[in-house]
């Protein structure tokens, strides 16, 4: 994940972010002098990917409220989780950073199945929900046998003492950035 991608989840454990999109070293039709194009990094480079993916989804599945309401779940159902780093034995990145994973536009647009709910909110220990019925829909024309597997992401400690972990460190008056 890019270092400028912020972390969720919401303060009360809603699933945020939903999905991730490419944002590091993105080439686009942003003209620069001498006839070249710019390569930039940032969330401003990732958001057009999601907007474009949404446009394709609406175009193929129907430009209506039903598609729009289903979009988040469709992208989450078809996203591909990424690992924390490029080491082959690396843990998967926490969903608090990547959401359901990297958006896969082709599978989102052309898939016929669904697995809902797409987010299972366990919440905290006081309000914990532990059993989730999940509906598997086969929207295709042939019978399908599904095999299920649990893929855990790394667990993220988020507080040290009373301070949040991560972000910039040492940005205090007695220890400047």
């Amino acid at each position, binding site marked *: 994940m890019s270092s400028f991608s912020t972390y969720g989840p919401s*303060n009360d454990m809603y699933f945020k972010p939903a999905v991730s999109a490419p944002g590091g070293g993105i080439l686009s039709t942003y003209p620069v002098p001498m006839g070249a194009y710019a390569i930039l990094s940032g969330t401003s480079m990732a958001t057009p990917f999601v907007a474009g993916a949404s446009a394709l989804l609406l175009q193929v599945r129907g430009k209506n409220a039903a598609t729009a309401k289903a979009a988040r779940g469709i992208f989450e159902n078809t996203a591909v989780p990424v690992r924390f780093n490029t080491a082959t034995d690396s843990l998967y990145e926490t969903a608090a950073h990547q959401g359901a994973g990297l958006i896969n536009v082709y599978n989102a647009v052309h898939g016929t199945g669904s697995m809902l709910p797409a987010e299972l909110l366990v*919440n905290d220990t006081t309000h914990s929900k532990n059993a989730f019925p999940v509906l598997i829909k086969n929207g295709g024309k042939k019978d399908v046998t599904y095999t299920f597997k649990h893929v855990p992401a790394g*667990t993220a400690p988020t507080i040290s003492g009373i301070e949040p*972990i991560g972000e910039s460190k040492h940005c205090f008056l007695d220890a400047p950035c």
Partner: protein
Amino acid sequence: MVVEPVTLVSNAATVNIIPSTLKVAAGWTLPIMVTVKAPTGVDAKTFPVFSGFIQATGSDGSTLQTSYLGVAAALKDMKILDNTDAYFGVKLPLVADKDGNPINGSTTYTMKGTDTPLVIYRLVAGTPMFRLDLIDSKSNVTTNQRRSVPIMPAVEAEVESREVHSTIGKRSIWDWLFPNKGNSAGGTFAAVKTVGTVYQEDYISRNAQAATADANGYSTFPVTQFANGTAIPDGSYKILLRALKITGDAKKEEDYEVWTSPELIVKRA
């Protein structure tokens, strides 16, 4: 600015999926049951966020997944207010005088120009409701920020409902406009007698790890008038700062982190 990713640990949730394989006929929808238990061997004081993915691989080569997320701690235990001196070298929250110096005892303000009390605070966690009130200086409302345990022990007498999400109820605009009218409806928060509300904001995020207020490293609020625009009459007050704990009940005083300032005397020249 050094931005580091949050280091991950391998302690994973225990997940069961029943059944482990499922044949779904064309056009059909069938249920499975997924159970998720929080990981063990993690320190709840670090509020470990656990997550993962339940992947379905189809015999036709298709894939689907659903994602889970939770925290292996009670959110209500999360500290909201920085009550240490780590940031400024002097304990927060504090009230500053017109020269920007923290006040330690009774301080007089003329309310002219910048001679108004400035509340300085730092949120180490977001809060669903943040409130500044003025109380009479002789009031015996005290802070729960000087002790290692809250003044009022958590009263968890009610059976927890099966609500999946936080128990933040809908707070009506009525409670905000007329904070003391909640008296008859019960609620220890509204029962705290205040002179008037200076500021309230709902669902604010924590401050950032930054060195300046501009970068949201800390927050300030100048107390110049009541929130409804009326002037603060000459008199002797304290500032009552209350920040609701995450998943706290807005009606319960004991679900807030509470801080009171030293005495402020408003005396126009």
